[in-house]
């Protein structure tokens, strides 16, 4: 989203139809990384690993599996744990694109 906004910013300069000189290019603001601020909720055993029920997480990436990788890097013990991911309160798959801020990691519970 941030990337698109910046692209529009360039378009507004009305330079889209002609060649941009190197000197001009250097005056443009740099493209920021595509990061999203997510709110991630953890349940059960997962909350014990992360030591929190909820946190703000800066995510640089595209889909659910990239998010999982990022979380495995932050919390090594999450690796290999069984859980499902919900985005905006709907269960999603590994290849679903992250486009909502609210994420939840859901483990199965054995006890009864």
């Amino acid at each position, binding site marked *: 989203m941030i990337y698109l906004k910046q692209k529009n910013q360039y378009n507004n300069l009305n330079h889209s139809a002609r060649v941009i000189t190197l000197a001009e290019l250097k005056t443009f603001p740099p493209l920021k990384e595509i990061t999203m601020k997510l709110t991630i909720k953890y349940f059960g055993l997962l909350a014990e690993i992360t030591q929190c029920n909820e946190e703000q997480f800066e995510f640089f990436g595209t889909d659910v599996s990239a998010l999982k990788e990022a979380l495995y890097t932050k919390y090594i013990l999450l690796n290999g744990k069984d859980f499902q991911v919900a985005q905006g309160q709907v269960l999603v798959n590994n290849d679903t694109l992250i486009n909502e801020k609210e994420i939840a990691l859901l*483990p*199965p519970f054995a006890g009864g």
Partner: protein
Amino acid sequence: MNRYNRHIILSEIGQKGQDMLSEAKVLVIGAGGLGCPVLQYLAAAGVGTLGIMDFDVVSESNLQRQILFGTSSLGFNKAIAAKDRLEDLNNTIQINAYTKKLTHKNALALFNIYDIIVDGTDNFASRYLINDASIITKKPLVYAGIYKFEGQVSVFNYQEGPSYRCLFPSPPKEGEVPNCSDVGVLGVLPGIIGTMQANEVLKLILGIGDLLSGKVLYYNALNSNSTVLKLNRSVKEIKRVINSEPIFESLEDNLSCEVTVSEISIIEAFQKQNIQLIDVREFNVNPIIEVENAIHIPLSEFQKNLDMIDAEKEKVIFCQAGINSKKAVSILRDHQINNSFSLNEGAFEINKYLKK
């Protein structure tokens, strides 16, 4: 009938709704922390036929949360003890006690007798078996699971809705997700979650309100937060179960919890010289056991840390309740590491023994 007056005067229920309850047949599998409150409220509500299935006996550590039992039920089969208590609560309903284990062989015929199935079990093998049998017999399943201070509740297989496998397609690895006997549970938690299950059953029978079908509810007793998440039906998962129907009854039950392994008592173990004592509980579990030469490898990381095991020594493995230690011994046996014993007693008894 005066017994159900408070139901009947509700316009949403009335005599018609009460008659629907008395015609309903509900099977509750597992008369434990969840099963007890489910059964108590369904019996009180006048659900006409209740099936109770449990092969286990009542032990003292159950009484902290399994509210149908008292000291007089200790040592008795849970299904029978629950039936005795519920017949006193409501002698106008039919209660069937099943003292056998649920298996692939007996599940389908049993489920066919009932309208609604309730899962109150404490292990994944049973949960997947119950889910699959509910799909095949086309019965709605009121599911719940608990962990320490948290619970999850859902209604599966209701009117083409999703099933447990649409949420979690396959069981987690052995020993990865601990149950109440390993890590403990707040006594009131299964009371809250089981009562939510009873509520779903009543709404299902009466056709009122919104069910937790296509949704899973997570509840946390420590901060009173509940989160409801939407869940979609996975045609692939459901088809796979339906396709297994012709061979379902011949499928093997997952007996991994019951492998026969060499066991040893505390007294025998501490008489031995030169043993390696191995704690396989998860980290941060009480009580902490401090013994010279003891090592700590949680069962979930056991396979990865086999190099910590001393092949030369006799190994005594313990956990909280004597179940995970058996699993650890069978893992060692799978890796041709012999001379290992599962301690009969748990960590609390070891602590007691060491203090003597």
